[in-house]
């Protein structure tokens, strides 16, 4: 494995793998995560190597638990790291704030934002503001090499200044690969010891205010000793033009590239520690420039800081930022070139002309869909049929969606999710709707991973406050969308211990639900029957639809050289054609002559199409 290669070597690493390598070089002993793209590969890489290296790793139930677990390790004297995506920080924020006061260290908190929302349905969040609220030092690398170096440095800083350090990543850093120079790995197995310390841990008022004062003083110390240290985290590249560009993270590379392509040579202040920001360095940099442009992705975080410096140091300068560079979506070199053209008042590129040219080329959409054979497809198919059989109109059934592979149900052909908010919110909001409406059925779909993560309080709440909500838990044994990570339903945890999976129907019963059913979505008739019963009643239900993630199953079969079952179309039955196509399985296709066929490379043999049209479809018998 590349992340475990010995030092003095260059290997290609993904930004997220570079986080892991940096942590290993710093001597990390304890790692936790909850999966979420673009941060998923950090945890997945620890998962692959933890046992071999001898360190501890866990997939925690959610991000709040993950940060708490890692803080516990730091309180016990172990070097710890926790990683998650930006939304994870929202979930973890209640613990994120106080552990800065309590000096959880050595500890690194790695958070990946997702400009352009490539892997995020909920909002385009700029997590840098959290550094402000929590008063935590923040480091932002621009590429995988820096990610490795800065992660290591973050641990050193955390240890020296007795504070957790916030490592802020973005999709384009996390998901870029490049050759990375390696040093030696220092991590090895270690046990810690918790040291009682009344002064440190007493955060009841009035002592809490002492702790806050200490945090603020520490931040000033870090400003002086780290942030203002020229050429360390923050550095200046002198240019020949009288124009200054202040930038951070991956935007730095877009600036460099744009200057090269555009043929200009401004001075660049690259800020890798924006909290605490290097006020004197910024003032010094701006002083002799004619114009200053702040280039950053998402919000005007740096720009505001620069404008405050301008005020504080009484410098009269023109500062540009979000007036020239978009705050929506991830940045590209093109954006920076456009901004430079304005500032230099030269026009060499016209991207809008090109845009006109390809705008009128319509390419049929290829929205993501369930894998062939996915159990979610069967569950939604059965639900749809049950609704139709009962003569329920779609507008009379409110369907709460949630986060996971099953949110793809919002797309055609099923369109069986009316809203998707954030993990667990589907259940909570559906309960609110159920309490508010009459003559509408309310059904909430939630995955097993999401249920454990943030669905249990909502399920308990719906029971206690007595709404006639139908909750459908899609239990495929994994947190699948982010890469089939194990969750509390799995038999084995990340360290390979056989712990026995927790059954969701047992939880529902323990919460006091009377109508609890478990269905096998691949048994279409049975599944339809249960949905019919639930929809026809006016009562609370919990239905667990249980079948393993098909992708995980197929991978297991392939690794053991076992055959995957296949189905094929034996007869072209006219009245079946549309029915088959509307299943929306990628394996079911139509040829030039209008005949339906099943692509034998793509079919993963769930048998849904066979149950829908037994006259047309047959199971393939291996000879």
């Amino acid at each position, binding site marked *: 494995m590349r992340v475990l290669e010995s030092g003095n070597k260059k290997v290609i690493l993904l930004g997220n793998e570079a986080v892991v390598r940096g942590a290993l070089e710093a001597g990390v002993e304890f790692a936790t995560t909850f999966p979420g793209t673009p941060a998923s590969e950090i945890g997945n890489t620890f998962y692959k190597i933890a046992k071999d290296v001898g360190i501890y790793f866990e997939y925690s139930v959610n991000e709040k638990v993950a940060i708490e677990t890692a803080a516990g390790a730091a309180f016990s004297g172990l070097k710890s790291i926790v990683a998650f995506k930006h939304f994870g920080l929202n979930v973890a924020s209640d613990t994120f704030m106080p552990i800065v006061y309590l000096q959880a260290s050595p500890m690194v908190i790695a958070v990946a934002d997702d400009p352009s929302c490539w892997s995020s349905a909920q909002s385009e969040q700029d997590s840098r503001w959290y550094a402000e609220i929590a008063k935590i030092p923040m480091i932002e690398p621009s590429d995988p090499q820096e990610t490795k170096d800065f992660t290591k440095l973050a641990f050193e800083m955390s240890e020296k200044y007795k504070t957790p350090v916030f490592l802020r990543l973005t999709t384009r850093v996390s998901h870029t690969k490049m050759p990375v120079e390696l040093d030696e790995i220092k991590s090895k197995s270690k046990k810690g010891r918790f040291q009682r310390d009344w002064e440190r841990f007493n955060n009841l008022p009035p002592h809490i205010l002492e702790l806050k004062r200490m945090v603020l003083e520490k931040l000033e110390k870090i400003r002086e000793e780290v942030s203002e240290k020229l050429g360390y985290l923050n550095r200046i590249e002198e240019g020949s033009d009288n124009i200054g560009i202040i930038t951070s993270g991956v935007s730095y590379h877009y600036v460099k590239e744009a200057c090269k392509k555009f043929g200009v040579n401004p001075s660049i202040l690259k800020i890798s520690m924006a909290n605490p920001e290097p006020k004197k360095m910024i003032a010094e940099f701006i002083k002799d420039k004619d114009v200053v442009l702040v280039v950053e992705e998402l919000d005007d975080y740096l720009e505001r800081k620069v404008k405050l410096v301008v005020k504080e140091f009484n410098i009269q300068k023109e500062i540009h930022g979000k007036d020239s560079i978009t705050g929506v979506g991830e940045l590209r070199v093109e954006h920076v070139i456009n901004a430079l053209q304005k500032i230099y008042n030269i026009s060499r590129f016209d991207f809008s002309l090109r845009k006109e040219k390809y705008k009128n080329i319509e390419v049929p959409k*290829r929205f993501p869909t369930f*894998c062939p054979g996915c159990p979610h497809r069967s569950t939604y198919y059965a639900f749809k049929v049950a609704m139709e059989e009962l003569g329920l109109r779609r507008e009379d059934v409110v369907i709460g969606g949630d986060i996971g592979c099953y949110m793809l149900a919002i797309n055609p052909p099923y369109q069986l999710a009316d809203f998707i908010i954030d993990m667990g919110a589907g259940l909570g909001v559906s309960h609110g709707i159920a309490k508010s409406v009459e003559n509408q059925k309310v059904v909430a779909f939630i995955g097993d991973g999401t249920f454990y993560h943030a669905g249990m309080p909502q399920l308990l709440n719906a029971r206690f406050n007595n709404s006639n909500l139908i909750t459908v838990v899609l239990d495929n044994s994994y947190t699948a969308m982010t890469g089939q990570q194990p969750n509390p339903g799995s038999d084995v945890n990340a360290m390979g211990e056989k712990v026995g999976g927790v059954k969701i129907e047992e939880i529902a019963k323990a919460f006091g639900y009377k109508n609890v059913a478990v269905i096998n979505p691949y048994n279409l008739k049975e599944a339809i029957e249960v949905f019919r019963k639930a929809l026809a009643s006016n009562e609370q239900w919990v239905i667990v639809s249980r079948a393993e993630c098909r992708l995980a199953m197929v991978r297991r079969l392939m690794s053991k050289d076992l055959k995957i079952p296949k189905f094929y179309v034996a007869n072209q039955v006219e009245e079946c054609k549309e029915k088959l196509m509307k299943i929306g399985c990628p394996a079911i296709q139509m040829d030039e002559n209008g005949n339906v066929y099943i692509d034998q490379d793509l079919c993963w043999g769930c048998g849904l199409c066979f149950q829908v049209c037994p006259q047309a479809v047959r199971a393939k018998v291996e000879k």
Partner: protein
Amino acid sequence: MNEKNVIINGVGGQGILTLLDLLANAAMLQGYEVKTAEVHGLSQRYGALETHLRFGEKINSSLVMEGDADSIISLEPLEALRVVKYASKKTVYLINTFKIAPISLTIEMKKYPELSFIEERLKRFTSNIIWVDASNKVKEITGNTIATNIYMAGFAIGYGLLEISPGNFENAIRERFAGKDAIIGQNLNVFRRGVEDGKSKRG
């Protein structure tokens, strides 16, 4: 060589991320600076998948600029059209002819467009369009289409699009699949066939 800007794209599940990693490693072995970007996310599940590969003397951004691709390697015809914004006169398109119909067409019982329809649109941007019968070739060699990605790399290198030597790509294959000799053997075989076919296409 100053820099090469390459788009590699297709449909999630076609082995595009593997191809990207192999080419990045081969470019590093060739002595270039290299960066790749994966523009994906929800798109793994049979959605459109777009990746960028840049290598040369000095590489900053991992993303290719609009109109700045030297080559576009598309593993699926419709997907070739989806990334046309990166193409301009200098761009060479290498497109696998194997069609994967998107669900948006199949559930509406609509037909997949003709290759000529796609080509006509691509030609508004560049005249260098090479159709490669990769998946069918690979099926002949191995019995299935899985190694289409490797064949396309071979074809591109054989055709001289990338300025990466076949030997370095072969070493990248050996590193990536270390310990799995059967897979290495089959991939090398497919790769070499791709190189040969690319060379003879070049003439």
